[in-house]
């Protein structure tokens, strides 16, 4: 059972590392400029199919752009949006959750009411609503996703802090003269990191799918930036003539999200003693 648990973390971690490498080293890895159009080579199938070209491993799109290069560059947006959203949403959500849980009273009431309002929206809808009014753009997209995700961290951290603050080590830290904010952020919050890591991992998978969905709907980043979702949306019109335009970007999203979910599953198995008993 141990090896299987770590296998998930290894495989998931390897896929996530691949995404990071693709995103960071895209200019070095991509065989061509993802925007370069070669109209005479438009809609070329992948190399291994009949009439495929040696020059284009995964074929070309309707404007003769290299699919492999666009997929590699597309990973940058997924990675950037995923990491930035998880960081910002985590920071905002954990801070608010920790303050609400630790201090209680008015702080708790205000945070709980606000999070209730955000929980009343399905998160994809919040993102759609914000993008509809603010318009396309990477910054707007990260903000929209952050606003739709912070509440998950807030609720979990609040719950954990509520129980942690009654523990002996917190009483001891206070008895030694530790001030509230010091005790909270030095002793209490670090104990929530295991749960936060698990939600952050699953959260990143959700954010990547949501970003792709928004780009697919034309509400993500501007059209000239290659993203997996917008590639799928463009390729849809050529589904019967050039299925590779939708198959490859979709597989890129699926493999990435699958890997991150696998990693999340593995981390949860390790961190959650209740699950360990279930197995």
């Amino acid at each position, binding site marked *: 059972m141990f090896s299987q648990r770590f296998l998930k973390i290894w495989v998931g971690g390897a896929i996530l590392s691949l995404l990071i490498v693709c995103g960071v080293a895209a200019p070095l890895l991509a065989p061509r400029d993802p925007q370069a159009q070669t109209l005479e080579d438009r809609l070329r199938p992948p190399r291994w199919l009949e009439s495929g070209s040696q020059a284009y491993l995964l074929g070309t799109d309707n404007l003769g752009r290299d699919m492999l290069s666009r997929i590699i560059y597309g990973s940058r947006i997924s990675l950037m949006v995923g990491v930035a959203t998880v960081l910002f949403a985590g920071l905002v959500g954990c801070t608010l959750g920790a303050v609400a849980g630790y201090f209680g009273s008015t702080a708790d009431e205000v945070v709980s009411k606000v999070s209730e309002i955000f929980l009343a929206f399905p998160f*994809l*809808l919040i993102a759609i609503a914000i993008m*509809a*009014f603010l318009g396309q753009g990477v910054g707007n997209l990260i903000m929209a996703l952050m606003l739709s995700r912070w509440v998950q961290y807030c609720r979990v951290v609040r719950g954990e802090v509520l129980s942690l603050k009654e523990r002996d080590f917190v009483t001891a830290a206070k008895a030694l003269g530790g001030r509230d904010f010091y005790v909270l952020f030095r002793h209490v919050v670090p104990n929530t990191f295991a749960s936060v890591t698990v939600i952050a991992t699953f959260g990143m998978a959700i954010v990547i799918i949501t970003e792709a969905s928004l780009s697919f709907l034309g509400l993500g980043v501007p059209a000239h930036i290659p993203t997996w979702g917008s590639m799928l949306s463009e390729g849809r019109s050529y*589904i019967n003539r050039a299925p590779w335009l939708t198959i490859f970007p*979709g597989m890129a999203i699926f493999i990435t999200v699958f890997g991150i*979910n696998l990693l999340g599953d593995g981390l949860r198995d390790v961190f959650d003693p209740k699950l360990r008993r279930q197995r």
Partner: protein
Amino acid sequence: MNRLVRRTVGAIPVIIGISFLIFLLLHLAPGDPVTLMLGDNATPQDVENLRRELRLDQPILVQYWEFVSRAVRGDFGKSLKFNEPVMKLVAERLPATLELAFASLLVAITIAVPLGVYSAIKHNSLLDHAGMSVALIGVSLPNFWLGIMLIYFLGGQLNLLPVAGRIEYGIEIKTITGLYLLDSLLTGNLTAFWSAFQHLLMPAVTLGSALAAIVTRISRSSVLEVMRQDYVVTARAKGLNEKTVIWRHILRNALITIVTILGLQLGALLSGSVVTETVFSFPGIGDLLIQSISARDYKLTQVLILMFAVTYFVVNLLVDLLYSWIDPRIKF
């Protein structure tokens, strides 16, 4: 009863908060919404007229008050794109989304609950591992991609199912509830039923797949949790047969978590319908929302988002009510 009243009353400030947030979004939009709606060719006079017509020249709180007071009377104004009352458009499109949501829910429950329960009962078996792997794949599959792939293989390559719309062009259907499957059955129109069923199948599988994956995982863990309870051990110790233990003692108690998750996931179904309806050109509220966003019909967008949010909220309230039916220990 008290708790139900308390929850309903407690919902009011949340709904007011939601409506205010959505209302604020229109004013947070960069630039002037009226200029955005009319485009670059509009004259200053056109802009001024529309601004006055939409009452955007009033202070924000006045505008919000007018919006709310009209909304409680069911008057949400006119759509700029369609030049028709918003409520009429919603009434025309809502049944399609509801039909899709119910069908997806049915797909999810039919697949997920038996698979999850069986995986738990046979936990750590080959079937359990296979079931959980399928569930992990389902959670990771972007539903719009699944939809496109179904269109390609089942619609394009195998030509088995229609790829867009709600019913074949030319088939007349007498509308009673707006739910085509139900209406065609009520009027005995089997041709329409078959066509509507075929049109619904791929969108429902697309939308239901992610939900099925989540529900499978939750059903499994919830059954595993209940299986360890003392009353299950007692039931076995007093000699009840395994079937009775599973049906009467395990499933009944595990159902509470499953219903909660299904209720919470209905929101995801509603927002997922936006993507699925776009993929299949399915004429529901989600498709209307995307059309209104691309036409910059902010009034319609505002109302549709509000409707989605309120529906989600009401569904969660109804899920709470279902608890007392499933578990008589919970009283309102």
